[in-house]
């Protein structure tokens, strides 16, 4: 990773938002790393209760069918097996089954913990064995007598073949249709007549259908949960690998008809999640239900095979984009039609991402007239779950069409983008979907990316290489990252508590799973309080200590928790000054805090340490004025806008092996503007990780079903993740334009994954331009590429 800082606003953060301080804006080393990279991380597996029964799920071997035999008696009789539960025992325990963020009444498929009577996707849990060890539990699985009368499955994405599932067979007969949801929502206009007018009269209209195949989260630590029902304490205690402990508590309490007070949930270190662990799915709930019904401790850690087959799937969609331009390539209107396969049981509601994709499809462009429609369909496959940049299809499709249109118009793709991007003069800019973009810098990031990668030089190099028969290409993509903070997610709290020793404990409802929250939030608080970062500790992931919150997801942590931490820190600092003012017999306005010492400005001799202030705030409360509450604690619950934005431009250079179709990524450049950076190193780490996932999605990762809904990529032998050897150095440039939220931060955690797929696909498309068009196929395997080169593509 190479950081490049250039451009007028880049490099240093300064100005009214004072983005850079002793800790803020500095590449402070990650405090998590010392333990995480030396094997001292503590994951669920490391804290399993010795008396927990270990779970193995019996999972459906077929995609759809009726269960004709399910006899668990032999399994239950195996020594070491404590219980074998089926849907008949477990499902009646489920009183209520919905995700807080979706609400009680939003439509969803008929939920159940375990399959009963029929199965609806390969991998659906049918029974659960509770045994002394996972080994024994798996031995017992082999003793269960299961017969399924297989029925034709509804599968839309299989072996590279895609077609939205229709109503020949119903995935959920109770739902009455395989169409899970549609856009526009009922009652909204079904077309935009002004757009239709533009499409029929514009000089040029371009239309393409873009496909995105099924690829998935794959965290290093899989899902897992242990639960213990203790009737004596009237308490269900849970440890889960989750992004969101409060949701674990809420879901389990609702499911079992318990009160929130009867359930405690916490997380240890979480070894990655990427969206997979922001909701709570049936296996986790089944474990909690089993602990409750069996009145004991029960633990389940998903194995890799389960994680791939049944851990929740993502992407799997088509987006058709129609774009009208005038003769000079000025965009006049855009229309999108989105089709998503949400599988059988999407983890949240009906799973679709079209609602947000609709908001974001115009991206960083002034697109004129606009309309969007969508359809989400069920299939007999593993359900959809959020994956970093869940609605990224808008960027994937738009940025490809931009390149295609530019090529057809004979306009340079960068020039085409510049002509259509929202300019600084247009800010604040209201998009056709009603979003207000206030501080975006698409042209600046485009220019910076082009400069870093050396666009003009590359075009010369490419021309020369083509003469030699080498195949080189360059691709760009730009986007706006929209971070949703709807409902409670927009109102996160941070509590800063300083005990008598003058050290700050910071409590927050975040759920770091790789975002460096322990470092970045400590930077924010230490900066505000004027104490050393080592005197701050972040406490999260525990419903008994954290303020109510929605965890870490949706790129929100810096803006919501970071903003709240900043203000909570300011409030506590005021309190520190007020107490110190008593001790120093001075006015708080005349005091300053630095390096853990409060002193009278200009009179450094008149000083007390923060530790002394803290002691006085508690033990010396009799000395405080009567109206002053003793103690040193402050909290702030922020009110964030429902959507926050950052922007970036990605650029890639690829070279293709003419004989094999293998793609080598020679350079990868990102220019981003996430406002004030709390920690530039962490920003770059987030970008890099996201880009790697995009590389995986475009070139390697594909969860494949056959036409009968049987999963074919069930281990890492076939589900190919990118490795260090497949990833180039990622060069990153920063443009810094503070947002209007406290701290001037912007959301950026998902952008790497959002913008890299189209940048990479565009680079391959550019490289292959002399050979003809790229078919609507993903991933870009060597075979797909070679077929284009050899002219054998079955378009």
């Amino acid at each position, binding site marked *: 990773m190479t950081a490049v800082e250039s451009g007028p606003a880049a490099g240093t953060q300064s100005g009214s938002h004072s983005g850079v301080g002793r800790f803020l804006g500095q590449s402070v080393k990650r405090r998590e790393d010392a333990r995480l990279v030396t094997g001292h991380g503590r994951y669920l597996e490391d804290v399993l209760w010795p008396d927990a029964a270990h779970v193995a799920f019996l999972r459906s071997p077929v995609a759809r069918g009726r269960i004709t035999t399910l006899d668990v008696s032999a399994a239950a009789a195996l020594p070491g097996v404590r219980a074998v539960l089926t849907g008949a025992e477990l499902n009646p325990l489920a009183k209520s089954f919905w995700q807080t963020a979706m609400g009680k009444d939003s439509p969803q498929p008929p939920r159940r913990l375990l399959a009963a009577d029929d199965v609806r996707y390969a991998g659906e849990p049918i029974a659960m064995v509770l045994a002394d060890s996972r080994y024994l539990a798996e031995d017992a699985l082999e003793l269960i007598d299961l017969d399924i009368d297989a029925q034709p499955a509804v599968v839309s994405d299989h072996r590279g073949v895609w077609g939205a599932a229709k109503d020949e067979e119903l995935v959920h007969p109770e739902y009455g249709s395989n169409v899970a949801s549609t856009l526009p929502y009922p009652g909204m206009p079904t077309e935009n007549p002004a757009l239709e007018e533009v499409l029929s009269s514009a000089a040029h209209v371009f239309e393409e259908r873009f496909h995105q195949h099924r690829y998935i989260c794959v965290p290093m630590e899989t899902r897992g949960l242990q639960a213990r029902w203790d009737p004596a304490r009237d308490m269900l205690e849970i440890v889960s690998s989750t992004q969101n402990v409060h949701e674990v508590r809420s879901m389990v309490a609702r499911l079992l008809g318990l009160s929130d007070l009867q359930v405690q949930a916490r997380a240890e270190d979480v070894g990655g999640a990427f969206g997979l662990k922001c909701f709570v799915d049936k296996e986790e709930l089944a474990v909690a239900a089993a602990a409750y019904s069996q009145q004991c401790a029960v633990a389940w850690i998903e194995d890799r095979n389960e994680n791939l087959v049944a851990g929740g799937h993502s992407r799997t969609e088509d987006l058709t984009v129609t774009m009208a331009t005038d003769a000079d390539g000025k965009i006049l209107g855009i229309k999108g039609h989105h089709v998503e396969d949400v599988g059988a049981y999407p983890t949240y509601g009906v799973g679709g991402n079209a609602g947000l994709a609709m908001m974001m499809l115009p991206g960083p462009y002034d697109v004129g007239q606009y309309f969007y429609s969508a359809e989400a369909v069920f299939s007999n496959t593993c359900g959809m779950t959020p994956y970093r940049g869940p609605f990224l299809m808008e960027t994937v499709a738009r940025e490809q069409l931009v390149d295609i249109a530019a090529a057809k118009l004979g306009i340079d793709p960068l020039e085409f983008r510049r002509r259509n991007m929202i300019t600084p003069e247009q800010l604040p800019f209201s998009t056709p979907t009603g979003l207000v973009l206030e501080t975006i810098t698409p042209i600046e990031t485009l220019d910076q990316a082009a400069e870093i990668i050396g666009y003009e030089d590359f075009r010369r190099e490419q021309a020369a290489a083509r003469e030699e028969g080498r195949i080189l290409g360059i691709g760009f993509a730009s986007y706006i990252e929209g971070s949703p903070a709807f409902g409670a997610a927009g109102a996160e709290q941070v509590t800063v508590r300083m005990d008598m020793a003058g050290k700050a404990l910071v409590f927050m409802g975040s759920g770091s799973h790789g975002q460096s929250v322990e470092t970045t939030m400590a930077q924010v608080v230490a900066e505000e309080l004027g104490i050393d970062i080592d005197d701050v500790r972040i406490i999260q992931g525990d419903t008994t200590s954290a303020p109510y919150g929605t965890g870490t997801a949706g790129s929100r942590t810096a803006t919501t928790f970071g903003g709240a931490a900043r203000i909570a820190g300011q409030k506590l600092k005021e309190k520190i000054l007020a107490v110190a003012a008593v001790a120093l017999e001075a006015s708080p306005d005349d005091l300053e805090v630095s390096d853990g010492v409060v002193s009278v400005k200009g009179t450094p001799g008149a000083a007390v340490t923060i530790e002394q202030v803290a002691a006085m705030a508690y033990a010396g409360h009799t000395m405080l004025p009567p109206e002053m509450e003793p103690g040193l604690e402050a909290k702030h619950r922020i009110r964030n806008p429902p959507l926050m934005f950052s922007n970036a431009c990605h650029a890639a250079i690829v070279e293709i092996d003419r*004989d094999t179709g293998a793609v080598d990524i020679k350079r990868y450049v990102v220019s981003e503007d996430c406002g004030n950076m709390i920690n530039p190193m962490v920003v770059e780490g987030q970008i890099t990780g996201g880009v790697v996932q995009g590389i995986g999605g475009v070139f390697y990762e594909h969860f494949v079903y056959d036409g009968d809904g049987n999963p074919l990529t069930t281990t890492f032998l076939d589900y190919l993740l990118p*490795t260090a*050897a497949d990833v180039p150095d990622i060069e990153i440039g920063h443009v810094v334009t503070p947002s209007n939220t406290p701290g001037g931060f912007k959301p950026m955690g998902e952008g790497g994954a959002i913008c890299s797929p189209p940048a990479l696909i565009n680079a391959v498309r550019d490289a292959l331009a002399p050979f003809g068009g790229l078919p609507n196929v993903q991933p870009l*395997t060597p075979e797909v590429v070679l077929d284009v080169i050899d002219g054998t593509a079955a378009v």
Partner: protein
Amino acid sequence: MKPAPFTYEAPTTLAEAVDVLGRYGDEAKVLAGGQSLVPVLALRLARFEALVDLNRVDELAYVREDDGAVVIGAMTRQATVEADPLVARSVPVLAEATRLIGHFQIRNRGTLGGSIAHGDPAAEYPAVVTALDATVTVAGPGGQRQIAATDLYDGPMTSTLSDDEILAAVSFPVWGPGSGFAVREMARREGDFATAGTVVGVTVADGKISRAAISLFGMGPVPLRARAAEAHLVGADASGLDLTEVGAAAVADVDPPSDVHASGRYRTRVASRLVARALESALQEANR
């Protein structure tokens, strides 16, 4: 992903290992580096009453010269093969192929014998032994016997060893002066099993090719020899060959499998080009 129960046996000599294995017959399996066997057990794709661990049988780990051949014990780690000076000097293509096996962590555990006994049709070592006409020594209850590499495989991951036999050593004939070799493969990622690959060896004398071997891997149920293409090469002028034509001839009769990574059609096309590239490189080496 937990294996079914098994008994663990850990003999310390080859004779003892053969003995223990004989007691279980087809109910036992030999454990070498475990890099292929353990995942199979963990996924419960196979189960055995006993595992006979060869990791304490020190006499099976060696590299030595013997009568014009390089003989390597079955339990020699792939990492050892990769770094061995005798291998580098006398069977350089074996070292070159080793670097294409997985990642260094896998080569630190994985063994030469394990890979060859396992017989994955997309693996490098089986293709090397097939191309070089190596000989395998196996030990069983009735003593030792030799199997020519080209007779070693029946089908995918099925060798002609019987259940009570242990692969003890592999003997690689050292090709004479004027020889050159190359291995080329296409893999989806660095370290993956090959989608398609080839091992090529040639000997050039007085400007003419006197010996040629081409094996293909990932191209059928077992590593294949491209006999027709080899015949076409022997006796031909080493310079001015139409490499593309040789590549095409090498794949003329193969019917490679299709899977999630590539179609058979792709494999055929790529293999022919890899043969051309490998041959070019082998000829260069032979002419040095």
